[in-house]
Structures are given as C-alpha cells and as structure tokens.
C-alpha cells in the first residue's frame, strides 16, 4: 500500500485543487463531524488509537499532545502547523503543501474542533514560495466553500487559518522557537515547562503539529484509528512519508507502511546509483546517528527497529551514501550546519557546535591531532542534554554516531593527513 494517506491525490491531474481533493472524498469527514456534532473527546480518542506519532521528528504521540489542552479553558486557543521543514534530507512536507494542501487544511480544522481552537497558523519556511502559493490558493478555495470562517456549514463552529512565512532559520522548526517567530521575534526556543498546551502562541493554549501529522488526521477520522494503526506495526502506527536522497537512482518521497524493510524502500528508490556499494545510511534526517549500510539492509523503517540500531527514525529523511563518500567530510558538513544554525542562546550549543566543526574541519584538512577523537567525544558529551532545546543534541548525535561506526576512518585521517576513501 502506497500513497494511501497524505498523498492520496497524487495520481490525479492538478491534485492540489479543491475539486480533485473532493473527488477522493476530501472534506467529507469534516462535514460529518460538524453535522453530527461529534464529541471532541471521541476525536482525540480516535487519534490516540491510531498510534500517530509526531512526524516532524520527535515522534511524540499526537493524540496525547492534544489531550494536554484544557478544552474548556476560556479564551483563545490556537492550532499551529509546523511546515518549517529544514532538517537536512527532509523534503516530504513540501510535497504535501504542493500536492495535497486541502488535506492539511481539513486536518487543521478538525484539530481546531477537537481542542476548541478557532484560529490556526501554518508556519511555512520562507524559501518554500511555490508551496506557499499553493497553500494560499487552497485557503482561498476553502474559504469560498465555507470550510473556513464563521459558523462552518451552519455548525456554530468558527475556524480561520492563516499562513506565516519564515525567514530562513532551521531553529524555527523547534516548536517554541516557531511560536516566538510568529510573534515577530528572533526564533529562540523557550524554556519548558510551561509547555505550549498551557502557554503557547501569544501566551494562549496551543497545539503544534507537523504538516504530515495534521494531514493524516482526515483519513484517521474517516477510516478509524484502528485502520490507520493497522497499516503500520506495533508502536509505529500508520504509513509514513519517507524522503530518500543521496547516491540513489530515483530519489523522492514515498508514502509506505511503517515497518517496511529498508531494502524495499531502497528498491523503490531505484537502488544504488552506478551500481556502487552502499556504505552508510542516515535514517532520519542529519541529526540521526549514521548506520552502516550492511546493518541498515536488515532494518525496518519504524521507530523501534531504527532505535534498536542506535539511531532514530526522526522525520523519515533517509540519506543513502555509497562507498565513495568520506565520513570525515560528511561529518564536517553536518557539523558546519549545526554551528551555523545554533541560535546562540545556550552556551554549550553556541560554543560547542563551533568546537565540533573546527575539530572535524582540522581532521578533514589533514591537521588532526591524536587527542582530537577523545576531544570530539568530550565536547559532544558536554552539549548533550545541557541546552534548552534539542538542537544541541542534534549536533552531538551525528558526531557520536560517526565515531561509533567510523572511528578508524577518522583515525586514518589523523595518522596519514589524508583520506582513506579514494574520493577524498
């Protein structure tokens, strides 16, 4: 089963149009919920049953997150969608926004109904101009059809939705940095607690979910939580969009059941380019520790299987590297990224990411010192768990993963001032 949930309109011509979405049953479940006045608690229960976990990377159960909101608390509440897709290797939400924006809109309205929020924002990264225009066009269509605005379809429920455009900052994918950004500030993460469910956007109760999570909601409510859960495997309900890139023949986005063997995903992606040997896989965006290719061939694409190999499923961004890649150079580029994107708020991350990059850079440049590998271990350890948000951990994890599996390659660079891979 492929493209059954978020990409269910993908085979249609101009699938982003309202009429196309509706030809696949789009907005039917919203109509049902509103006319039956379905109990919000029942909706949250169904989402819990589905086993849907946050598709942005953290994997937190979506239904549980929703249940943290005090539904009957007076005053404004918000639904916020995180379309600030920026974890290197991830390009799935872009396709939802481009090809099935209405399903995201329907999911956000349903989420609003479930938590008692009447207003939503979709935070789209500023570089995503084409997806932004598609989404705006879909909002317009939805407003005209009476799916957004006051008293939706005569139900008495109001919901309106707007887009906020980012300005180029990876950190804004962190949910509280994203809220700060909507408030017109630098995107620096907030201390938690309080969590957004209690103190979110403009200080009001807020849920923030990833694009793919919210776009999964209409199908979960249409076909039932159990149906969704059964697509996947234990602890990993549903299907998932995997964005696979690197040294492969047919990179792209594939929506497949959780638990699908990696080897099958690689086959769908056309296999290795030029018949090269698979060397390593970064299974869940660049923060996910690397897994050697041979080991990866025996793993499945679900939370537990990947976690069992010491890494994480993350955003479902799979970067496949062949045997021409130098792991030192790969890590150097990743470490540069986290250094560049650290917001500068916490000392261990602001300074530590600089240390990580500079040390890996000197090893790559043939000026590594014998003590450098221990130094990298030490710096990574001193960042982990000591910062307000997860960017610090995200910078430390790839370093730890690379040293765990490819320490000999780093050592070779230090000993010989050059690369052991021909390409280096």
């Amino acid at each position: 089963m492929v493209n059954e949930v978020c990409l269910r309109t993908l085979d249609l011509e101009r699938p982003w149009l309202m009429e196309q979405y509706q030809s696949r049953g789009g907005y039917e479940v919203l109509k049902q919920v509103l006319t039956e006045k379905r109990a919000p608690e029942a909706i949250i229960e169904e989402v819990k049953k589905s086993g849907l976990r946050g598709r942005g990377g953290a994997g937190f159960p979506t239904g549980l997150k929703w249940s943290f909101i005090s539904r009957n608390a007076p005053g404004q509440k918000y639904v916020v969608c995180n379309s600030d897709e920026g974890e290197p290797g991830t390009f799935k939400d872009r396709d939802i926004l481009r090809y099935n924006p209405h399903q995201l809109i329907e999911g956000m309205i349903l989420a609003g109904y479930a938590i008692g929020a009447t207003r939503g924002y979709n935070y789209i990264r500023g570089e995503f101009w084409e997806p932004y225009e598609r989404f705006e066009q879909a909002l317009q269509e939805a407003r005209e059809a009476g799916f957004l605005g006051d008293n939706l379809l005569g139900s008495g429920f109001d919901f309106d939705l707007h887009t906020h455009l980012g300005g180029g900052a990876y950190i804004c994918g962190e949910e509280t940095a994203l809220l700060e950004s909507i408030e017109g500030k630098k995107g620096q993460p907030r201390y938690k607690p309080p969590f957004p469910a209690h103190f979110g956007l403009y200080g009001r109760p807020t849920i923030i979910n990833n694009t793919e999570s919210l776009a999964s909601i209409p199908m979960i409510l249409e076909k039932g939580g159990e149906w969704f859960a059964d697509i996947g495997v234990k602890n990993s309900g549903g299907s998932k969009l995997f964005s696979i890139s690197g040294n492969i023949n047919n990179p792209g986005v594939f929506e497949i059941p959780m638990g699908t063997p990696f080897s099958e995903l690689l086959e769908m992606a056309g296999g290795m380019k030029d018949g090269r040997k698979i060397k390593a896989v970064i299974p869940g965006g660049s923060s996910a520790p690397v897994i050697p290719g041979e080991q990866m061939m025996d793993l499945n694409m679900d939370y537990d299987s990947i976690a069992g190999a010491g890494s994480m499923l993350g955003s479902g961004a799979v970067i496949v590297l062949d045997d021409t890649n130098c792991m030192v150079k790969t890590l150097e580029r990743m470490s540069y990224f986290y250094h560049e994107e650290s917001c500068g708020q916490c000392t261990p991350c602001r300074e530590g990411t600089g240390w990580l990059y500079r040390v890996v850079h000197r090893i790559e440049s043939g000026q590594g010192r014998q003590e450098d590998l221990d130094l990298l271990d030490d710096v990574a350890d001193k960042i982990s768990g000591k910062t307000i948000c997860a960017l610090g951990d995200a910078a430390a994890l790839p370093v730890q993963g690379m040293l765990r599996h490819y320490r000999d390659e780093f050592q070779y660079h230090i000993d010989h001032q050059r690369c052991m891979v021909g390409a280096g």
Partner: protein
Amino acid sequence: MTVTVKDKTELFSPQICAEIDRWIAKYPAEWKQSAVMGALMIVQDENGGWLTTELMDRVADYLDMPPIAVYEVATFYSMYELKPVGKHKICVCTNVSCMTNKSDLIVEHLEKKLGISFGEVTEDGRFSMKEVECLGACGGAPMMQIGKQYYENLTPEIVDAILEGLE
C-alpha cells in the same frame, strides 16, 4: 531613534502599505509585531533585495516596534540581506545530499562563469552568490534557488541555460 510619525501612510507607497496591512490583518490586533517578518520581506523585495537601516526604522514605525526589535529579526534570519545583493541572488545548497551529488561542481562552475564567490556581487550588479543550508529539495540534488524559484537536478549545462533565461 524612533521618529514620531503622524501619518503612517507616508512611510511607504500605498501599494507597500496595503501589502503590509494584509499581513497585519492575519494576527490579533494587539500583535502587529507578528507582521514584521512579512513586512521586512516586502520592503526588501521592493528595495532590490536588501534592507537599509532606514527601511528597518520605517518598518519599526509602521508596526509600532522599537527599531532594535526589528534589527534583531533582520539579523537573525538568513533570508534578510543587510548589504546589496545581485538582481539575481543565486542560493546554492551544499548540505549533505547536495554535496554527495556534486554541488561543489555547481559552485565551481558558477564561480568561474560569474567571477565571484559566495557573498559577492558581480560588477554589473546582475548576480550574487550565497551558500545556503538545506532547502528541503534533496530529491532534486544538487539544487539552487534564484529569487523565489527552485532549480533542481543541476548540471553545469543546466545552470548555463537557467542563467541565460534570466532577464
């Protein structure tokens, strides 16, 4: 320094004011500041792709913000430019998926063709180059963005054709 402005509509052209007002309308009335990112982008586009201090001050006045709060935003996010850029700002991704698909060849080709490196502008002001982090199009690596447009699956030949097609 905040200039006291009697009439905000004097700060920008009617068209720019209307565009900024569209952003303001998306947020609660007491949160005009939320429109700062949209406003900076509009003003930057109008000014050939970069922001002057004077323009940032005007945005501050328009949104009733302290100028420093606007500078904080403009310096934090990578898409705001604080010095002149080319008419066509070429943003090349060099992150892992692009790197392993030879983004370095694209960078070299552009450098040779345009005679500039990252952070520089051609003498005629037509082009500037910028190294960017993952733009979320790794399936089309190597890729670049010029203006609002993504260009994917690049080769030096494709880059040539793209540049020739620009005004």
